[in-house]
Structure formats: C-alpha cells, structure tokens
C-alpha cells in the first residue's frame, strides 16, 4: 500500500515533464559569429551593388509646375479668379528615355495619410451597393462630405473622393516647330484587385449607369458626376474610373506620386526620343493654400521599382559595416583568446 501510494504521487518521468527534451543549443561562438558576419557583409555588398547600379539606370524627369515664382509658366493659373486656366511647360530630353515610360503626377505637403481624412469614405457604397447610396451605413464617416447644402446625399461620399486630383495633361513632342501629340494610355493604371473586386459599379438601371445614381448628387468639388467622369470611354465611368481608383488608394507619406498615364503606343513604344517636349497643363487643382507643390514625373521602372538610391546605398553601408565588424571581432577574439591561453 505504501509503495502504491508513493508511486502514485511520483511525478511523471518523461522528457517533457522533467525538462530533458532534446534541444539544439546554439552558442554565439567565434566560429559562428565571425564567418556569419563576413558572409552577410559580402552578400549585402553584392546586393547593394546590384541595387545601386539598377537604380542608376532608371531615368527620371521631374518638373514642378505649381507656379510659385512669378516667371514660371503656370504662375498666372495660381490666381484664383482664373478658371479653366491652361499653361504650358517645356522641357527637353538629351537622350532616349527608354520605354515603357510612366507619367506620374506628384504632390507634396499633402497629407493623404491624415487619419480623419483616411476614414472619410464608405466602403459599402463603393462596392456598388445602392442601399448605401441614400441611407448611410452605421460606421459611415463621410461627414461633412456626406450631404450637400440641400441635404441631398453625395455619392461617392467622403473627403478622399471629394479631393480627387483634376489637373489634366497633354504631352507634345516639338519636331521642327510643330507639335506632335504623344499618345497617353490610361488603361489599367490602378491595381487589378481595386478595379475588379474592391470597387464595383452599381448595376445599371434600364441599361443606364446614370440612372443608378438617381436621387444623389456629385461630390461638391467635382466638375461632373461619377457616371460622367470619362466622356470618351464609357467603360471608364462610375466607381471604376481609373483615375478615381488611383486617387482613392491613398498615399502613405506627405510627398507622393500617383500614376497618371503610360506612354507605350505608336511611335513611342521604345520610349521618348531625345528632343524638345511641351506639356500642356489644364490647371484646376489648387494647392498653394496649404503650401503644397505639384509636379509631373516621367520615369521608367526596373525589377526593383522606381528610382530609389536608398536601398542600394543602405545595403552597401550595412555590408561594409558587417565586414569591418567581422574583422574587429577577429582581432578581439584573437587578443582575448591568446591572452587567456597565456594566463592559463
């Protein structure tokens, strides 16, 4: 009886309960750390060189057209009373700008990442759910861009939609004094998932998209309602307008670029040849009130995206530091190891 009682109270003698599980016990020994740092350093230097060289091959042409200085071409458009103003920015390319060339517009000092701005949209509306056109979903945060002054519901509601960028551009190449238009392609500039899943148009009523928006009004700052955003292409209207989708994907930082068009067709499929160019800007978007700046950017891309020297330089710096560190560690290890041996 005593033996039974003793063995019943005895704790389990398994490897798990007695903390004897087999384990891998890595130690930060010199044999692992020093070669490890060296290998990582060399690998990073290699990657850094690759990134840096790639970034150097990317061509970028940036032009600020806000019109702050009096002698800039778009200065007269900054005067508020000048509506439907058009200005012209000229630039020249010294070498072939290899295609496909991407045409971005850039804004700075523009906080699309502001929290209150970022929540000001209605996801349910934008999936084409007409139940949310007139009545609001409980978590709707669109105010004060939710109803207009006559209490009509705004579709699409919210500050993000309302502040859509509405400057338009036309690009001409100047050949022998004549302007030749460069075709700009605006199809497929937004993410595939945005275009196909996240944003859906409401179902057309009697075959007409416009009728689906009955009883609602356009956002206050829009020139035309949503179903008329693109008069040239009937597929590019409603919530599926590519420029609208690009704008709704709000930026992370106060200085950002958004894709406007691509230059891939016709004579310019290989890129923009060297020469003089003229950019006609239909200046509608006011940014000077909050000290913002507007610019256009022409860029080509590579496997690592747009031009960004930081990643290449960072890899080079970290790689060199690792190599230096491994040498220092070797010295320290040798010094202290041999001094220990001398003592012992």
């Amino acid at each position, binding site marked *: 009886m005593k033996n039974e009682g003793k063995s019943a109270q005895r704790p389990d003698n398994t490897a798990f309960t007695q*903390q004897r599980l087999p384990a891998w016990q890595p130690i930060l020994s010199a044999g692992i*750390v020093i070669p490890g740092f060296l290998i990582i350093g060399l690998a990073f230097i290699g990657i850094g060189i690759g990134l840096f060289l790639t970034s150097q091959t990317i061509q970028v042409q940036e032009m600020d057209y806000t019109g702050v200085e009096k002698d800039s071409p778009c200065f007269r458009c900054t005067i508020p009373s000048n509506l439907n103003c058009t200005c012209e920015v000229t630039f020249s390319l010294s070498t072939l700008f290899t295609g496909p060339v991407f045409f971005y517009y850039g804004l700075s000092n523009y906080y699309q990442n*502001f*929290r209150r701005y970022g929540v000001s949209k209605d996801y349910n509306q934008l999936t084409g759910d007409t139940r949310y056109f007139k009545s609001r979903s409980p978590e709707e945060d669109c105010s004060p861009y939710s109803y207009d002054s006559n209490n009509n519901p705004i579709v699409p509601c919210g500050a993000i939609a309302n502040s859509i960028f509405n400057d338009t551009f036309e690009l001409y190449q100047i050949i022998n004094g004549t302007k030749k238009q460069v075709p700009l392609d605006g199809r497929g*500039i937004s*993410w595939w998932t945005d275009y196909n899943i996240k944003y859906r148009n409401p179902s057309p009523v009697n075959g007409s998209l416009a009728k689906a928006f009955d009883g609602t009004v356009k956002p206050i700052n829009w020139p035309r309602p949503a179903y008329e955003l693109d008069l040239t292409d009937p597929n590019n209207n409603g919530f599926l307008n590519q420029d609208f989708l690009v704008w709704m994907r709000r930026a*992370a930082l106060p200085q950002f*670029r958004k894709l406007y068009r691509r230059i891939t067709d016709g004579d310019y499929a290989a890129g923009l040849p060297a020469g003089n160019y003229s950019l006609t800007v239909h200046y509608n978007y006011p940014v000077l009130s909050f000290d913002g700046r507007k610019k256009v950017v022409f860029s080509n891309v590579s496997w*690592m995206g747009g031009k960004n020297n930081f990643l290449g330089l*960072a890899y080079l710096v970290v790689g060199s530091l690792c190599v230096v560190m491994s040498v220092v560690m070797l010295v320290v290890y040798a010094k202290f190891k041999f001094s220990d041996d001398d003592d012992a």
Partner: protein
Amino acid sequence: MKLIGATAIEDKLQDGVAQTIEQLTKAEIKIWVLTGDKQETAENIGYSCNLLREEMNEVFFVAANSPEEVRQELRDARLKMLPDTEEDKFLIPETILGDTPKVVEDENVNGDYGLVINGHSLAFALESNMELEFLRTACMCRTVICCRVTPLQKAQVVELVKKYKKAVTLAIGDGANDVSMIKAAHIGVGISGQEGMQAVLSSDFSFAQFRFLQRLLLVHGRWSYLRMCKFLRYFFYKNFTFTFVHFWYAFFCGFSAQTVYDEGFITLYNLVYTALPVLGMSLFDQDVNAGWSLEYPQLYVPGQLSQYFSKRAFVMCALHSWYSSLVLFFVPYAATYDTARDDGKDGADYQSFALITQTCLTVTVCVQLGLDLSYWTVVNHLFVWGSLGMFFILTFTMYTDGLFQLRPSSFAFIGTARNCLNQPNVWLTVALTAILCVLPVAAYRFFYSQISPTINDKVQYRPAPRPRRTRLTRRSTRRSGYAFSHAHGYGDLVTSGRFLRRHAPARSMGLISTGRSPGFKPTGRSAGYSPVGREQNPKQKVEPTSLQMFRAVKDTSF
C-alpha cells in the same frame, strides 16, 4: 547496580544533507538551523552536516537567563568578530521618509564564525529592543543554529530576517512544528515523510528528501529566474518597438494618430504572432544544463543580485527598442519614398506601407527571439516558425476577396498582400531591417562574452557533464553524528569521539576508539561540550577548479 542494557533512538540525517548544504553555501546562500532539539543535538547536527566546522574561528554560545546577559553575550560576540565597531551604531538609515523599510546591511568579517543560541535566550533576543542587535550579530556569522525553539519563535526569526534584510527567505521543514515557519517565509518547502503531511500541506513546494532542495534551487530556481527575466525583457522590447514606430510616424501624418499598421495586425500581434514563441521561451529555456548548474553553484549568484532584470536592464531594453523602432520606421520610409512597383503602378500607398512595416516588425522580433532563445526544443521550433507562418497565412487570409465581400469596411486591405509582397524590393527591405536590428545585438553579446565572460559563457562551451557519484567530504572526523542526551560525567568521555575514526585502522580495544583528541576539556556549561582546540586531521582538500575561483558576476544577457 547491574547494567541490564541500553536503549537508543536513531534519528539519522537523510542522505546527501551535508553535500546539499555545502553546495548551497557555495551558492552564497546563508543557512540557519531552527530546531526544537537540545543544544548538543543541534550542535552535533551542525557538525555532521558541515554547517559548523572545526576550522571556524569561533562558535559563540548564547544561553543566558536574563535580557541583559543576552545582550552582553551578543555584544561580546560582535566585538570579537569586528573589534572596531561602535557599540550602539546601527547601519540603518535613521530618518525614514515614507514607507521605506529599514534594512540592515551585511557586514564583512574576517573569518568564519558560528552562533548557537537557545530558545530561552532567543525569547529575549527577539524583543523589539534587542532584535536588531541579534540580527546584526547573527548575520555576521556564517552559520546560526537556534536550538530549543518553539514553532512561534521559528516564525519570528524568519519574519525578523524578512523585515530587516534585503533577502529572500526559504524555510524548509518536515514536521507540524515547522508549519508556522514555512508559512512565514517567502518560500516554504515541506518535506513529506515520516512525520506526516502537515508541512507539505502548508508549503509552496514539497518533496521527499532534503537533498532535492539543491535541485530545486540551483537548477529549477535558477532557470525560473532566467526565464522570467528573459520573458520580461523580450516582452517589453517587442511592445515598445511596436509602439515607438507610431511615434515616428506621427511626424509624417500630421500628428493625426494614424496607425502605421492595419487594425487587424494590431489585434493579432500580441495575441497570435508573438504570444506563443515567448511562451515557449519562458517554459523551456535553459542556458546551462542541469548537470552544470549543480556542479557550479556560483551560477546562482546573478539571481540573488537581481542582475538579469534591474533598472539598468530595463533602460537598456528601452534603448534597444528605441533604436529598433527607428530602423523599423525609417528604413521602410526611405525604401518606399517616391517609389513605384515593378510594373509602374503605385507602390507607396498607405496600405502597402503598413504591410511592409508589419512584415518588417514581425520578422525582426521573431529573429530577435531566436537570438534570445538558447535552448531550442521541438516545441520552441514549432512555436517560433509556426507563429511566423501564421502571420503570413493570416495576412493573406484577411486580405482575400471572400472576406472583403463579406464585410467591406472591416477588410479594407484587400489585395494588398498580393500586390505588395510580390515585389523584390519589399523583401529586400524586410531583410535589411531585420539584419540592421539584430546584428548589433549579436555583436554586442559576442564582444561581451569575449572581453568579460561570465561563468555562464564558460560553462556553455563544455560538453554535458558525466553524472558521477559525489563523495561526502567529511572534514572532521572527531565529530560523530550521534548525540547523547546526558548530563555531566562520563557522558563527555563517551562522546569525545575516541571510538570513532573513519580512516584509521581500528585497534579494537572495546568501546573506546583509538587516539585521543588533545586539549579536550569539558566546559560543563550546558550538559554538552564545545569544540576547543583543533584536531588537525588531514582533511580532504577539494582542489578548486578555475571556475570555482571565479567570483565576479556580470550581466549575461543584453
């Protein structure tokens, strides 16, 4: 009279008691004995388990009948140990601001001293006007044995030490008379056995043999402290890093309290992505295995000095987090500044940035945990890689079409994972941040272990020890483990140890042993005997290894 016979009761010490006490003493643990036995029994027990030793400078006996005598005896003892101390000066801060308790600091004395005090004197010594005097004297001694104490006095002694010393107390006992002491101490240990289960029922830990205390403290106690400290430091690190990133982002989002991460990530970060790995670390981690922990009790000292988690350790952890958060924000910031995807479309939008930062953070804290873990069991592997895998699985799941169509406003990040994580420069950013956060820590630890290695570092390089039978190192052979309850007379003769010599050849002369101890004289103070003079037996010298002479202990972890 005709001698018919003799009766005796043998109450032997358990196996391994002396060796346990020796190991615990090496671990800088002070051991006091509180027993209800008589003085000579307690003394004998003290000698037989190496608490009192022949080579001690002196053993003081306090057995007086009045408070003044007790005070005088305590003072005499103290002055003998530290001759130049002042009479009434106590090393306690006199002015008490607020509720900070008075603490009696340890004083260093030259030589080993022992103190034996009986219950009657203890009753006087524990009064409020003499308790500090008693504590001070007792703490100067290497060993304190209180004999003839009542259960209440046992608890009072423990509480005295708790109150006035910056120490953790552990009380171990096996009988019902030890219950009050067990309950009074910080940690109570009950030995289940012959005397019943009362001690066990009132204790925090219980086992069957005293020698298991060695394993409890030096192996499991030490591991527990290590695990707890590593857990705390890592937990603070991962949460501070997670939070400080928002601080940096505030400068770039107009101070609008915009979170850098997706809300789903914020919910799941502490719940799913980083909960299990740190739990695995705090359950299974071992820096030094059990064999070496028992072999080198000095490994126990960092826990006593609170070295692995102190104010300094916390500040270092906060600085590490601050640096990590700088890297974790500004590297993705610079990498996504004015960039695009490899097909020219937007890559610097808020949702991609959030996903990049999330991925960088999760991978970095995972790698940092991998650096902290020194004992990778199967469970740890499962937890760490499983959590990292869960991060990717859940991220992809939350950003799928199906969930978005179910509830658009909650799953607004749809498509982000697919569009962002197929970019090579995103993965290069993740790798860069992880390396930049973790390699400085690895380098720092390496330099520390090379320039000022702690005993942990040295022990880790050795293979696991072979379990060997430890021999009982008996220093003195004059003492026996037997006590005779006898008053004056030839009881002293019998107990002089003449008949007991372990290694000398037995010259059988009947009852008495060979050899005699010179310089023996009965003191007659309290029906016992006290060790006078030194019997210079060749004691077994334990040759110190290089590790045993190692004293300075430094912080082993970052």
